[in-house]
């Protein structure tokens, strides 16, 4: 059976103007295996999957299914070949039930009417067979992210898909949910489904995958058997050098309080409830305080209210002894607050501006960069060149590169350079490593720790458990808009943290430490 490949992508090359996104890549998926696809951002994982899904046509190379060459010209062809995909951002209709979402597009009908009874039976049978617990009548908007994901998986199974592609499936899950997903994936493989698992989390690959194909800068690096390899080897193949996983840092030496949040409440934009409910805590110099929690528990709203992007409905903000509750964004920025925003494309960058224009986004009005309203181009260029050099931001044409054309990691580095170079008293970093590869993550963590060590305060908001545990000095867990726990990362386990994040455990959080 060694040669029993269900999908073979042989010598795939895909060229875009000026860049080879895939350069002679080969990926062979065996029947019934879990095959991980590993690579840094921009390594060509998405392009490869888009080719398999019919969104792009390869410049050269061929795709074989069960040994026969196939041409996948559009996603419908992929569907016909029983290839299914769970996207990173689920494609579900919020106001439909689970069952309706599963049958959407292949609705069973009787005359002009829907015939849901048979569909329900089939869905429940599939659900039992693979251990995918769902409530078929619940609305998507009411169920957990984990159940939404199971709905997506059922969608593929309902369509008799044999090749299942999972695109970064664990990014939105709690540790408990991740464990369950791993079980489900193993189950699916046992039942003969073939799984392609796109990720950059090495732990998960080690746990669940049979084999792993590694891409680097569009090139095929190799395919390894997981049982014969180690995390270190995988990361070396992915990045091309050794990477340290643990964050090297001295114990924190907290000083005076920089930020005090008192009874902050922020209304939600999507529902009538409050997104942030009466939270109080403080952040001191020389420490990294991390707000942990599952996505959508009020962290974003909290940060927006803190930085001034949105208004809070009650509460107080004290920054270095001054009341900044009603200060504008610019005033807060001037007072010494830096903000690495959650969404670098929405808030962090003007993508159609050049790198140098983005580098001064928070400072262009300072006398250093303008005179009588005219921008001093030379000063801007010099400043930008210095940041590029110092923070190793790579781009095609240096300062005059349009930021849209840069890779995600370098865009993020540019934001970090800009925000840290402002020499802030408080650095608010929201998911600063989201979507980045291990090399860039390592770099960003070092910068955060360096900021802390120079006596500044850092407030980190993160969804990544490893990051929460490794980088922070103090963890605050946010659940449904409330702070439900203050934890010391050295004294708790990931599992325990997971219980707080899922709302299963809670303590009182002191307003001051």
């Amino acid at each position, binding site marked *: 059976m060694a040669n029993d490949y269900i999908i073979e992508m042989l010598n795939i090359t895909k060229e875009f*103007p000026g860049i080879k996104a895939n350069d002679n890549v080969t990926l062979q998926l065996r029947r019934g295996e879990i095959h991980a696809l590993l690579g840094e951002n921009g390594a060509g994982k998405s392009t490869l999957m888009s080719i398999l899904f019919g969104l792009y046509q390869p410049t050269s190379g061929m795709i074989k299914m069960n040994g026969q060459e196939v041409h996948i010209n559009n996603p419908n062809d992929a569907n016909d070949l029983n290839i299914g995909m769970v996207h990173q951002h689920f494609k579900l209709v919020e106001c439909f039930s689970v069952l309706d979402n599963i049958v959407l597009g292949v609705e069973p009908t009787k005359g002009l009417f829907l015939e849901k009874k048979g569909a329900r039976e089939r869905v429940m049978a599939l659900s039992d067979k693979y251990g995918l617990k769902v409530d078929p009548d619940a609305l998507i908007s009411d169920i957990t992210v984990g159940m939404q994901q199971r709905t997506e998986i059922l969608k593929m199974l309902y369509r008799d898909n044999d090749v299942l592609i999972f695109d970064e499936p664990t990014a939105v899950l709690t540790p408990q949910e991740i464990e369950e997903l791993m079980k489900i994936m193993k189950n699916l493989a046992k039942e003969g489904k073939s799984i392609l698992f796109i990720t950059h989390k090495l732990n998960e690959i080690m746990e669940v995958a049979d084999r792993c194909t590694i891409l680097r800068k569009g090139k095929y690096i190799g395919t390894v058997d997981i049982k014969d390899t180690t995390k270190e080897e995988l990361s070396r193949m992915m990045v091309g050098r050794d990477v340290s996983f643990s964050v090297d840092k001295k114990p924190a030496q907290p000083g005076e309080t920089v930020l005090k949040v008192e009874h902050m409440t922020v209304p939600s934009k999507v529902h009538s409830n409050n997104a942030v409910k009466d939270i109080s805590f403080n952040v001191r110099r020389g420490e990294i305080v991390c707000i942990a929690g599952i996505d959508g528990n009020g962290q974003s709203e909290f940060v927006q209210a803190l930085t001034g*992007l949105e208004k809070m409905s009650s509460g107080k903000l004290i920054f270095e002894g001054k009341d900044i509750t009603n200060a504008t964004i610019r005033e807060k920025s001037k007072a010494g607050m830096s903000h690495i925003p959650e969404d670098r494309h*929405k808030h962090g960058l003007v993508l159609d*501006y050049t790198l140098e224009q983005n580098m001064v986004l*928070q400072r262009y009005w300072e006398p250093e960069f303008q005179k009588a*309203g005219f921008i001093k181009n030379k000063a801007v260029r010099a400043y930008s060149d210095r940041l590029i050099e110092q923070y190793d931001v790579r781009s095609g044409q240096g300062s005059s590169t349009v930021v849209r054309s840069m890779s995600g990691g370098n865009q993020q580095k540019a934001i970090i350079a800009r925000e840290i170079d402002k020499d802030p008293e408080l650095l608010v970093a929201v998911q600063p490593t989201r979507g980045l590869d291990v090399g860039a993550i390592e770099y960003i963590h070092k910068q955060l720790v360096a900021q802390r060590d120079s006596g500044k305060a850092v407030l980190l908001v993160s969804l990544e458990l490893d990051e929460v545990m490794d980088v922070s000095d103090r963890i605050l867990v946010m659940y449904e808009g409330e702070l439900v726990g203050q934890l010391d990362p050295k004294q708790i386990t990931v599992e325990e943290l997971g219980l707080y994040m899922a709302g299963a455990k809670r303590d009182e959080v002191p307003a001051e430490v």
Partner: protein
Amino acid sequence: MNEKGKDVLLSIGASLVCIVIGLVVGLLILCCINGENAVDGFSRILQGGFYLKPKGIGSEITQAAPLIMTGLSVAFAFKTGLFNIGAAGQYTVGIFGALYSAIILGLPWYLCLLVAMICGAVWGAVPGIFKAYFNVNEVITSIMFNWIGLYLVNELLYTGFGGAMYDQKTTRTYKLSAKAPQALIPDAGLNSIFKTSSTTIAIFIAIIIAIIMYIILNKTMFGYELKACGFNKDAAKYAGINEKRNIILSMTIAGALAGIGAGLYFLSGASEWNPQVATALPAIGFNGIPVALLAMSNPIGVVFAAIFVAHISVGGAYLPTKYFQPEIADLIVAVIIYLCAFVMLFKGVVINLLKKKHADKEGK
């Protein structure tokens, strides 16, 4: 050549390709209407003002000045991410401002121009305020303001002020040369060069304003903020830029530019307003949109695009009425102008095409 220079060349190339496509379609339509005389008619359109030298050139220049201004008005708003479809209304209100201050107040031309500018600015600011504070789409409000402006101006010019601005004999507003010569923009001898009566220094004023707009957009902090708002409103807010203020300011400036356009045209004595017949908004206002598109919102490009549009329009007027109804001229010109603008919407396709060719050449 550096990347930026290449991009500029590509943009200009794309604009030229679009113009050619527009012209070809115009020629095809002429052929359909009257095949025999199509080529003759088409060559007259192509020659524009040069068909009837020097008078034609003079009127081309007169037409180009207000077009530059309305083109700038639309282009400036575009840069801030706003679609100022209200340039026609702002222009119309600007006409009233110019004529009122000229005929009733008897102000000199530069002050009349200022009043026209203020009137246009007010008419642009209102949709801006609605957009900034109530999030009402500026397209909807400015279209409504177009019509409110038009009928308001008609009413005021016809019966307002005891009809003091309305000449019963011509059924138009009084000719400025007769009633308010102090309000005429100086011609600096241009009228005698071109043997016309309304070729003034307006064109130079328009070009200078275009250069000022270019400097504001590209060299100043204000332009940096405006463009940041246009490209990414959220990032602008994140950077502490007051995006509400910028939306209002941008629409106000756009309105002011259209208002100046009205002043430049009417204070040159190029036309009088007929409040009883004018039930359509002035075409110069709307033609600002294709001009801005054709120029890819670049203020310097607007100057050239406006001259091109004026050139074609004037040429259209010389179509032989023996074979072509006078309306046909308008039709052809409109087809050419709007097709150019529409094709510009696909400029990405055109630019890719040009890039590919370029790459092929380099490959060989």
